[in-house]
């Protein structure tokens, strides 16, 4: 998370889309949704609320159930129990069922799912009620909306690149002016450079249209950069929901911490709001436990610093060009003979990985001074 373009977008909506101040801001509500396929429970009680006009990313490893959740919201699957409501109207519940085609929901699949037998224009027109000239001009508008030339309307899907196909799929889904847009890993089939560019273009289009959006992805960087709200999915349930900054810097549990990015995890002793570990005393806000805990820091919080009071020796490095991953063995901590022996005192010696921009500074065997920036997060001790 560098800057936050998404934060600006929702607070300053474009004139084309105006929020009704009196309208409920909870656009989508998923409550206690369960779903099994042949004895395997895929969704184990999912609760999720998405505000009007906001962007939510559901991120999770493959098999965590995120696509199933999306398909339940879209109306391709019916939940076994629980309910889904859109704009305050139940669309799935114990006695309610609104099929996909009657929900005002747009859906963009992983590979775009363009109809191969139709031209780009006919694909976009597919869901339109207009016909003829009105439809054609609408197709042109929609293509421009996804930054494509209207002349593309005559092409076949097979003549488009992967990124173009995804943008056409988005234009097609936008054609019906859906209240809610569902994106099922729409960027994962694209190669790295194209992925970022397409993601930006899609985010821009959707925010300009003011459509409530849910993105499903297994790529945590994509989730953090795309959404206002990130929901971390694990084993069929949402482990944490929050802003990208919060879920990254204050993950709810160790698995979430490790899923969302590299993490330095150290054994620590929690006393009040200070965690004692091999990196010294680290401040922790609202620790969930006292005594023996796991302390989590992000690698970028640990800096190489002349004046740092933590000593370590470089074990080895991985050079990536702009930055280098440096593995550092922390120095054993000398026991102060004047104090009584404390069994909870850290002993040092752990090996941690941090990142640094200067490869020359970190040759194996070099002794370094380190300091820690910001707060840590602790998790209760697990045997």
């Amino acid at each position, binding site marked *: 998370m560098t800057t936050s373009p998404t934060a600006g977008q929702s607070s300053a909506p474009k004139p084309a*889309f105006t929020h009704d101040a009196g309208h409920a801001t909870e656009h989508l509500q998923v409550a206690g949704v369960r779903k099994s396929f042949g004895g395997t429970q895929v969704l184990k009680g999912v609760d999720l609320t998405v505000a009007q006009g906001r962007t939510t990313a559901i991120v999770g490893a493959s098999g965590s159930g995120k696509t199933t959740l999306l398909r339940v919201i879209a109306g*391709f699957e019916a939940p076994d129990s629980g309910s889904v409501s859109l704009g305050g109207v139940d669309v799935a519940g114990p006695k309610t069922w609104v*099929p996909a*085609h009657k929900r005002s929901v747009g859906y963009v699949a992983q*590979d775009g799912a363009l109809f*191969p037998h139709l031209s780009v224009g006919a694909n976009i027109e597919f869901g339109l009620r207009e016909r003829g000239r009105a439809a054609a001009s609408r197709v042109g508008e929609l293509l421009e909306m996804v930054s494509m030339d209207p002349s593309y309307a005559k092409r076949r899907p097979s003549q488009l690149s992967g990124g173009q196909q995804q943008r056409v799929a988005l234009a097609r889904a936008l054609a019906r002016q859906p209240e809610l847009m569902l994106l099922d890993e729409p960027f994962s089939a694209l190669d790295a450079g194209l992925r970022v560019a397409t993601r930006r273009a899609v985010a821009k289009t959707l925010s300009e249209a003011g459509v409530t959006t849910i993105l499903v992805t297994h790529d945590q960087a994509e989730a953090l950069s795309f959404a206002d709200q990130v929901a971390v999915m694990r084993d069929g349930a949402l482990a944490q929901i929050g802003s990208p900054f919060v879920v990254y810097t204050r993950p709810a549990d160790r698995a979430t911490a490790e899923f969302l990015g590299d993490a330095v995890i150290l054994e620590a002793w929690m006393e009040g709001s200070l965690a004692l570990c091999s990196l010294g005393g680290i401040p922790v806000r609202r620790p969930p436990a006292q005594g023996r805990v796991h302390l989590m820091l992000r690698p970028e919080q640990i800096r190489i610093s002349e004046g740092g009071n933590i000593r370590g020796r470089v074990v080895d490095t991985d050079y990536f060009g702009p930055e280098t991953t440096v593995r550092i063995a922390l120095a054993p901590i000398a026991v102060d003979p004047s104090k009584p022996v404390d069994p909870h005192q850290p002993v040092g010696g752990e090996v941690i990985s941090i990142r640094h921009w200067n490869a020359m500074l970190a040759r194996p065997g070099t002794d370094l001074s380190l300091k820690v920036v910001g707060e840590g997060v602790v998790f209760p001790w697990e045997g």
Partner: protein
Amino acid sequence: MSQAKSTTTVQPSRARFSRIARGRGTRSGPWAVVVLCILIAIFSLLPLGYVAVMTADAGWDTIVKLVFRPRVGELLFNTLALVVITVPICVVLGIAGAWLVERTRLRGHKVWAVLLAAPLAIPAFVNSYAWVSAIPSLGGVFGGVLISVLSYFPLVYIPVAAVLSRMDPALEQSGSSLGLGPWRVFFRVVLPQLRLAAAGGALLVSLHLLAEYGAFAMIQFDTFTTAIYDQFRSTFNGAAANMLASVLVLLCLLLLLGESKTRGSARYARVGAGAQSNPTRLALGGFQAPAQLGLAALTVLALGVPLFHVGRWLVAGGAEVWTRDALISSLLQTLGYGLAGALVTTILAFPLAYLVIRHPGPVGKILEGANYISSSMPGIVVALALVTITIHYVPGVYQTAVVLVAAYALLFMPRALVNLRAGLAQAPKELDDAAQALGKPPLVAFLKVTLRLTAPAAAGGAALVFLGIVNELTATLLLAPNGTQTLATEFWALSSEIDYTGAAPYALLMILLSAPMTYLLFAQSKKVAGQ
């Protein structure tokens, strides 16, 4: 994106939402399809079930009396000799031809590629008719093998050529780089890759040999099928015919078992489908002339002889043979049965293909397997079963078009099924979902997307079923309503009366109807190879 978003669109949608659809489409769909598929599978198991029940009813003593006798031994010898000699020759010719056409610098390989597939357009009994005209004394195992090889070697050639044309040349290049010469590359690298295609082709040839009636009856070479037919004609529905049918069915099942053993674990080994370099063609050098001569000889025997003799009889018959009333009527009836049969078969195959592709699982596999086995039954067995079943249970439909079309559906369903499967695989469920998300009700989404995308494949399958029906003789002879003449039965009636000139126009029409379908089969094989 225009205005009127949040509040205004929610109100009307509330009204839409209140019309709650009955049944949860995602769950009720497969069950209806499964039930339909089970009904179709039961229908397709009728012939096999009939034979099993008849055999069980006959009792051990009858079985011993009717099966263990010299006549059956003679038929068994003829049939087995036919299979054992014909199949290896077809495999060698098919593989050699395919390899020359696809992998060597054979001059004119594009023309040869088509010429080697072309004999399939000539029905075996027309081939037989031509050869009997050329050599009236033709008969015995030699005659049977000659006609069979010339009629059926394309059944091996076509799938093998398809695999060869798609095979990644990197495999051969790796073989060469590992120090193998061209011959050893062929035997150690290329040939193993062809095992599945060649085994599949060999199975098809064998099943055709067991099922063929006309070609062998014409040269008075007795096999189980011809014997069952004669038995049926003399005693109508006797136990003897049924017992012979049991032995024939047993042979078919053994063949299927043998083929599935050959497939073994290699079943899942696939030929790479990604982008690959063009195949390197081997220089033939001094072998160019012998190769051209060999292919020319094969083509003359398999295409030249039948076409020449059909032409000769046409010339001899002059204009008179074209003006007989029966010609037009049998052409129209053939087209009628062909179209009806193709349509019914494709419709019946659709649920099965849908189940197998969209809801893969054990149920689909078992049902598809049942269909595969039952469709391997010879036409004579299917016909016997339907005659008996209709007489006993639904006498009203006995000898009506309904029964004949049902027989066609039983015999040719795999042709439709294979094509529909490939077609449905091109129309993934995601597209259906996308259409529904764009506001199309499930049925409309299905029609506009899935069915539309499957249509070309369905048409291809239907065309192949049509081809089968045009040339079908045995079941048509047994089941056709009184007064029905198809091109095949009329050709058969005339040539049986040694009216060779009168039969020639029918032969020509069958060849002309078959030619485009054969080309379609050939063209399609190149596309689906490796899948």
